């Protein structure tokens, strides 16, 4: 039995540089495979809805504006997402990817967590439509 067996280690630590990364001061990068925020490219999407079906937490929704002309908008909730990348694995056209650099997602409010992906005119069309209907609801 010994007492103070760690003495060598604590002395070494004392003279060594701390193991600490100075995160908020110096930004660091996550590894390449890290699963951060989800991104969607509308060009390749066929609208099969497999990703939506497989999502364990209803974080994504593919809103079909016009099926024939392939006008889709994807609603994505960063705060619901479990960051499991099953949607990425399910997609046959590789239109989904999780960005390894978008992981600083904290926010003081919940609204910014919902994002809409798609072509600009589709998104603005959808949002205008939604605003109009919500206006209708509020006046009822």
């Amino acid at each position: 039995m010994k007492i103070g067996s760690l003495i060598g280690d604590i002395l070494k630590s004392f003279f060594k540089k701390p193991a600490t990364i100075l995160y908020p001061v110096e930004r660091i990068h996550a590894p390449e495979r890290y699963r951060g925020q989800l991104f969607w490219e509308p060009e390749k999407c066929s609208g099969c809805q497999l990703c939506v079906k497989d999502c364990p937490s209803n974080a994504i929704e593919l809103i079909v504006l016009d099926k024939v002309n392939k006008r889709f908008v994807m609603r994505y909730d960063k705060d619901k997402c479990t960051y499991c990348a099953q949607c990425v694995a399910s997609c046959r056209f590789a239109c989904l990817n999780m960005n390894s650099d978008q992981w600083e997602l904290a926010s003081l409010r919940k609204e910014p967590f919902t994002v809409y992906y798609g072509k600009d005119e589709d998104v603005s069309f959808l949002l205008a439509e939604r605003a109009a209907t919500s206006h209708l609801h509020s006046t009822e």
Partner: protein
Amino acid sequence: MDLPKAWEAALVDLKTWARINSPWAIHFNSGSCNGCDIEILATLTPRYDLERLGIKLQGSPRHADVLICTGPVTRQARERLIRTYEQMPDPKFVVAVGSCGITGGAFEGCYNVANGVDKVIPVDVYIPGCPPRPEAIIFGVSQLLQSLQPPKKAKNRNAIVTNPITGSTPKKGVGE
């Protein structure tokens, strides 16, 4: 500005400064998978070492300023969460960590959960991720501290976190 007012303003500034630089935290698990909990604990360990930002994990709610809450809030933990929150002295802040702590995440719709901390107590910062990396938790906490900064100092917001070794302020904006 007359003297008493100047004194008062200085006092308020001093209080704010102290509050920003010494946020003691208490941690409550309201039914998460404990993935977030170990990540919160990991932020205290040498790799991340939140003590350099003045953050200490306290055991008693009476000593804490920040309630770090994880989990979708199960019905059993609900009462305890409210009680812990009420035991904390003012001013107090709540940080909801993890997707399930914000909306219920993967557990959304389970029969026994309230789907998020903000359904039970007011939340100041949301940190999504399942679980968020310790860095992301630190980022969330620094967001909270920035929001405490008075507006007039908003232009040097990033200067909140000074490098404990060199004493310099960050060159690049936090989270940009």
